[in-house]
């Protein structure tokens, strides 16, 4: 019994990885996009002065952690939503009719999604190093914890959205109306200090703020909140949203 569930988790994970490697165009797009953001925004804003960025750091140093988060976030979200593709291509039925618990299916998919997302995150991290971002390698471990939690959150969110939707067009809408605004608000692009106070409230309310802040804190310093707070928010968020996603997925009929 337990063996069966582990097998199911493993094969769901493996499938996700194979799909990731084989969808070349998506792979390239996912890796190149954050790199462009990083390079162009970093260079473009290199002469702009943010009063709160310490003198020995550049804007690029500030921006890089946000871009790593972006690539992990979007690729995890995509992994969650890929349930929609399975639905559309009928493969979901093959999975749902198997004698394994749906929880194992969700776990397998989540781990698969997180793995692929982390790979992409590391590619951006490496790119940042190449571009000269002052990353402290001792903070990488803590950053990975943040990224894993963020990725669980995003997979869960994607699963929830996918279970409630019929096709892929709705996903675009959610991306544009929910995810992009949340990400732009998250202090990935600008420091929180010195923002107008109402706007600051919005930034505080955005859960992604804490993820970005946490990753930034662990990789280059400059964190706004205590890292413990960042970690707590991310942990609660990841668990809660993943549970909701799993619940919706369990409920969905094919």
């Amino acid at each position, binding site marked *: 019994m337990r*063996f*069966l569930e582990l*097998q*199911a988790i*493993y*094969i*769901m994970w493996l*499938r996700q990885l*194979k*799909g990731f490697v*084989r*969808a070349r165009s998506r792979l390239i797009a996912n890796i190149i996009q954050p790199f462009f953001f990083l390079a162009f925004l970093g260079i473009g804003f290199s002469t702009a002065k943010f009063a709160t960025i310490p003198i020995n750091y550049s804007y690029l140093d500030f921006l890089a952690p946000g871009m790593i988060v972006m690539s992990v976030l979007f690729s995890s979200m995509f992994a969650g939503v890929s349930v929609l593709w399975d*639905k559309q*291509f*009928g*493969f*979901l*039925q*093959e*999975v*749902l*009719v*198997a*004698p*394994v618990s749906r929880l194992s299916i969700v776990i397998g998919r989540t781990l698969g999604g997180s793995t692929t997302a982390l790979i992409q995150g590391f590619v951006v991290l490496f790119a940042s190093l190449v571009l000269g971002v002052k990353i402290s390698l001792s903070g990488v471990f803590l950053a990975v914890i943040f990224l894993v939690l963020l990725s669980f959150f995003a997979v869960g969110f994607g699963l929830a959205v996918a279970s409630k939707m*019929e096709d892929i067009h709705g996903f675009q809408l959610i991306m544009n109306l929910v995810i992009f605004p949340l990400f732009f608000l998250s202090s990935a692009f600008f420091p929180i200090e010195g923002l107008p106070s109402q706007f600051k409230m919005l930034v505080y309310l955005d859960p992604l703020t804490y993820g970005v802040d946490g990753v930034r804190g662990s990789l280059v310093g400059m964190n706004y909140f205590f890292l413990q707070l960042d970690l707590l928010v991310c942990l609660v968020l990841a668990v809660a949203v993943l549970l909701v996603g799993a619940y919706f997925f369990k409920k969905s*009929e*094919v």
Partner: protein
Amino acid sequence: MKEIVVTENLTKIYNKKVLAVDHVNLRIYKGEIFGFLGPNGAGKTTTIKMLVTLLQPTEGTAFVNGFNILTEPHEVRKNIGIVFQEPALDLQLTGKENLDFHARIYGLKRDERKKRINEVLELVNLKDKADILVKNYSGGMKRRLEIARGLMHYPNVLFLDEPTLGLDPQSRRAIWDYIKEINKRENVTVFLTTHYMDEAEYLCDRVAIIDHGKILVLNSPAALKNSLGNDLITLSCNSTEKLYNALKSEHWVKNLKIHGEELFLGVKSGEKRLVQIINLASELNVKVNFVNLRKPTLEDVFLHYTGRKIRDEKRDFRREITIRRMRR
């Protein structure tokens, strides 16, 4: 004979108003090829989806190999293999990887997995295509792979939902032969749905004709056809009513029906009766336009029980669409 699938008043109502499956009671025996024959929207796929535990019945239940689909879905799933109407393969994986995925998710151990993958690939003749990505497969190859996959975990019952839908005639033939072969070699009971008469006739030991969610008649194809009479005469004339009334009282007329403008008669020895009918018509001053004498087909059986042809123009599209949308 041992019963392997039993349904008890199995019913599905969508949206509280569309009755897709209406109190179906079935007994399917071990080892047979059983067919559900009916037009689109008859409730075939809905029935299968309930039997494989993907849909909850509104009323009634069913047993697969003794396990209740409502209370023991896990056990039911272990006992069945299924080939869905729409392909359900991962196009990004190779044929072999699709089978491996299936084997693992059904808990086959490593050695068994390897052995079985080879076996089923051989069974459907896909061994040399096993390492090609499925997205490069033809429609017939995909179907064969799905049949192979359905057999991977040694199921007791294999469900096939419209197994040859959308295939060219040559591939259809091949699929038919594979189905017969696996039924015999693997000793697996096959439950298939189809709206092709020839398919039901060629493959099935027993056929149930289903329409509007109800089973109208159930028997072997030969018995179904014979129930209409050995020979079937269709006839068109200028006064169908008049001739109908005259023929009604003849003892040798086994079946008599009017469908549209035509008169249908089932009789024992057609050649002899044909002359008799023509004579009778001229006595009554009825002018016969054409006659046709042939052996009854399942199409005639369907017409007999439903009053329409299986691919009728007057389809109930609204019903079909509701069912199609709801069962996803």
